[in-house]
Structures are given as C-alpha cells and as structure tokens.
C-alpha cells in the first residue's frame, strides 16, 4: 500500500500535484485548532482590513480574520465531504453488491429505487428538508441526508462490476463450497470493487462539497457553523463584492477551487491506476 503510494507519487504527476494540494488544505484545516479566536464569534478584530502583515488574508466586515475563519471553514467543509462520502459508500456498496449478485427481481426492484434517486430533483428536496429540520439541520444531519440521496450513481457502477463477478468461475466455486450469498459478497466480491469505491469516494466528496457550498450560499444550511459556503453567504450578505472587500470572497473561492482540483486529480490518478489500460497508454506501452 505504502509502496503504491510512493510509486504514484513518483511517477504520476497528477497524483503528486493532487496530494500536494490536498495536503495543504488538510494542513490549513488542522491549523484551525490553533485559531486564536473562536470561529463562530464576530467582531473579534477590526473589520474590513485588507490583507496585511497583521492579517495575512485580511479581515471580514464581520470583524473576523479571514485566514483563521478559512481554516475552520475548510475543516468543517472537508469533514462534511468525508462524512457524506463514507456514509453514501456504505449504501452504494450494499445496494450495488446485492443487486449485482442477486440479479432477477431483487435487482430490478433495487435498480428502480436506484433510478428514482438519480431522477428525482435533488435540490428542492434538500431545501424542503431544511425547512422540515430547521434548527436540527446541523451539518451532520445534512451529511446524512446528502448521503442518503447521493449514492445512486455509484451503486449502479458497483452493480455492473458485481454482475460480471457473478459469472466468474470463482463465484460458482464459492457457491459449491457452501458459502452464503452474504459471505460471497463480503469476502469474495468486496475486495474486487474496493478500488472503484475508493476513486468514487473522491468524486463523491467533490459532489457533496459542491452541494454544501451551493446550499450554504443560498442560506439553506446552518450558517452559524463556518464552512466555505457560509463564508460566502456572509460575504454576500455584506455585499462584499461591490463594497470592495474582495478578499472575503477571493480566498475561500480559491481555497475551495484548489480543494476540488486536488481531489479531482487524486481521483483521476487512482482511476488510472485501477484501469491498467489507460496506465499503459500513458506509458506508451499499449499493444
């Protein structure tokens, strides 16, 4: 595992850049634990100070230090993405493996549900959820809801792999040796789909963070918790853009863009690693 990591780092430029970016972001979010100010509090420093020696990235119109605010925001945003990805992976793995392995009626019913989740308009449902949950709509709950809504694509992917695994000889062998479907799925099939799960995790994080940013900016989440989205929300509240407080918007946008690019590069590199065909074509050794 470590060796793969080292090789990827050495030979895959995308992986290396992705790792660098994501480490910077993670590093920044870890810094949030050393913030001199409580991240929720306002008017702790002079407002509207442009980037300077004292305040590296400037201060907001709410009297918060953009740098420290951003570290907390990145931390919460990242945690959010990880939480959504983790929960939705469990769902999509279960549905995908069961559907692919069982086939028949089970498959059809599960895939109908699956397709429903792909087709229903997500955004209004999230907004409605916000209205129903209100104060209890903490980021943890939002993560849970997003996970419950965001597994369908990947479940389909995993299902297709599981379907092909079902026809392999080793599966029949397992059946003849008396393993239960659950055992076959968890012991035999799971390891095959894990690499896919890993690369979809990163893409799912991108998706969920993007959703979170959008929802927060429009004010449909708990805006007391600093996240990249809620930072932008407050900046818009203070018309920071036209008021010339560009640093309040620019830094979080740059940070989140970097995070997206970083995660995406990692996902692509991993995908390539998983699919040897594209790896070969990169090495120029195809055919």
């Amino acid at each position, binding site marked *: 595992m470590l060796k793969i990591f080292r090789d990827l780092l*050495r*030979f895959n430029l995308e992986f290396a850049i992705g790792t660098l970016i994501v480490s910077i972001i993670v590093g920044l979010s870890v810094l949030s634990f050393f913030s001199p100010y409580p991240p929720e509090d306002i008017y702790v420093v002079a407002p509207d100070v442009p980037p300077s020696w004292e305040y590296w990235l400037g201060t907001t119109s709410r009297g918060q230090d953009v740098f420290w605010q951003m570290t907390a925001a990145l931390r919460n945003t990242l945690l959010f993405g990880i939480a959504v990805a983790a929960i939705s992976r469990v769902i999509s793995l279960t549905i995908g493996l069961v559907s692919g392995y069982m086939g028949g009626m089970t498959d059809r019913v599960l895939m109908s549900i699956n397709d429903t989740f792909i087709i229903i308009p997500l955004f209004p449902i999230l907004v409605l959820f916000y209205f129903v949950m209100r104060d209890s709509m903490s980021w943890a709950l939002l993560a849970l809801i997003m996970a419950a809504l965001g597994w369908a694509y990947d479940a389909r992917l995993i299902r297709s792999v599981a379907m092909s695994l079902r026809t392999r000889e080793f599966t029949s062998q397992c059946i003849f040796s008396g393993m239960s479907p659950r055992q076959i799925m968890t012991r035999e099939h799971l390891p095959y789909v894990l690499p896919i799960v890993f690369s979809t995790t990163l893409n799912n994080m991108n998706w969920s963070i993007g959703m979170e940013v959008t929802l927060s900016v429009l004010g449909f989440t708990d805006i007391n918790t600093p996240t990249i989205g809620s930072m932008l929300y407050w900046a818009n509240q203070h018309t920071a853009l036209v008021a010339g407080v560009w640093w309040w918007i620019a830094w979080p946008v740059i940070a989140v863009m970097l995070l997206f690019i970083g995660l995406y590069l990692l996902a692509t590199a991993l995908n390539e690693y998983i699919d040897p065909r594209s790896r070969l074509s990169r*090495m*120029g*050794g195809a*055919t």
Partner: protein
Amino acid sequence: MTLHQLNNHLNPAPEALPASPALRVDGLKAYYQTRWFGITREVRAVDDITLRIEHDEIYGIAGESSSGKSSLIKTIAGAIRPPLNVVGGTVNFDFGTRKVDLYTLKPEERTAIRWKHLAYIMQGSMSVLNPLRRVRQSFIDFAFRHMGMPMPAFLKAVEDHLLRLHLQPGVLDSYPHELSGGMRQRVVIALATVCRPGFIIADEPTTALDVVVQKSVLTMIREVQREMRASILFVTHDMAVHANLTDRLGIMYAGRLVEEGRTRDLFRNPRHPYTLHLIRSLPRIGDAEPRQGLEGTPPNLADPPPGCRFHPRCPIAMDVCRVMVPPMQALGGGHRVACHAVTEGTVQ
C-alpha cells in the same frame, strides 16, 4: 505432397532467381523505446534482420512468443506505432507493377498501396472488425477505393469473392458479434484478399481457433494463395502449421533470425539447436512421455545476453558463444544458419 509443393520443387531455389524478390528486408532494426520521467528503456525486438521472400511463396516465421516475430512482421507491414520505432535497415517490396521502399514512402503513398498490394491479417482477428459496423461496411471502408468501380459492381465483386471462398454473401449483412470465431476469421481473410493483393502478411491467423476450424482456415489460405499467386508472410508459433503450409521457414529467437531454409529441409535437417528444440517439441503419435521443454526463459530484450542470445539455454554452448554474435552463414540450397557450432562443425 501437394501440387503446390511440387511446383516449388520444380522451380529453382530463390537465391538463384535474378529478378527482385517480392520482399527484401535488409538489416532491419526496430526497438521499443520508452522514455518515462527521464529513464530511457530500449527493447531490441527486431535486431538486424535480413531476409527475402519470393513471388508466389508462403514464407513462415516461427519462434516462441516474445521472440520478436510479431514485432518483425509489424515492422514489415509498416504497422508499428510508438514506442516501437525502426532504428535501421530497409524494407523493400516489389509488387510487380511497382517497387516501394516502405520507410521512405510518404504516408499517403503508403496508404495507397495498402490493401491494393499489401494486405495484413492481424493477430487476434476476432476483434479486428468494428463491432458497430456491418461486415458490408467494413468491406466498403477497406476496399472500395482500390477497386475503381461503381458501388453496385463493387458489391457484386465482393460477393463473387466471398462465393469463391465458399462464404455466403449473407455474412455481409451481419455484425461481427453475430458470426462464429471461425467464420469471422474467414471473413477477415476474405477482406484481406478482396483486392487481390500481391503480398499478404498473416499474423497468427489460426491461433485462437479449434483444430477443425483451424484446418479449414488453413485450407482456405492455401487456396487463396494458389488462386492469386500471391506471396504470404505467415507467422505462427505452431510448428505443425508451418510444416503443413509454408514453403520456406525462418526461425526467430530473441529478435534475431537464427535459421532459414526450405521448410522441408529445416524439418529434416535442423542445424540450429533452437530449431531442433522447436521441432522436437512437436508431439508425435506414439509419444510415451511428454516432450521435454527447454530450460530457462527467453532473454530480456532490454538487456540481452552478449554473444549468441541463445547461449544461456543452449545445451552445446561454447565459450565463443558467450562473446561473439554468430554471423548468418549460407549452407547451400537456401539454407542459412547463425550458430558458432555449425560454423566450427561441432554439429552436423
């Protein structure tokens, strides 16, 4: 003995012919060159090959897998793409009406001779047809522009060609996945020969087929050759196929030609220890125990052994084999071999 072989018998040996051969390969070198983050790797897949193929002749190339035979014929067919690059030597064809030096041709000229004069049956013919196109479309894509006739006439010609090869014209309306393996292979051969090219390169066309189908495909190739009097360069690792089909045979080992001669001569009197090994590994009826394999593995061509590349596995290797590359030596009757032992007369 088939009529064809008899025919060969009556004709003079190739090197006696004054006219230019159908294919002349001289000192051909083609290496896989990879550069990856500053590390250059070179694999000498085709290393200094010289050979001639006459008109109206089936020339076979044999060798283990990864002996470079596939790379060689790809290079001859001009079907290489990076990282396999030609680093030296020439490939000259004589199609009767025109002579070409393959690697000095402009790409569009090369495109022009393809299929009209030079056809290629690729390894793994099962997947060489576009799965989303009907067979008829493939014939049009490949051959229409060479035939110089209007579409209805062209299609008629294709159907006639298929009929000649005992194929139903109905296959034209099929998608490749609707055809059986053997049928697909025959369609590919029909496709390769529809323009009646003077030179056909076939890379393991029968490998994936079962024995019965294999036999019928080989019969088909032979019939085509006889009818069109084309030259065929035929590659397979299966010595039995060579014995049945080819007129002359070249043996490759680790990117080099080690022995060449009339197929019959080679089977009767193999001079190179590697050839001997290949022939001995053919199963014969009545064998009591399994054939003995050769010890060791083919060499790593990125870092080939010095001297004769076969020496690490050669049962009769001598000191000279370890330092000096054995030169190709004519033994008469078109029989050539590159082995120090033969030169020094230690083997007969």
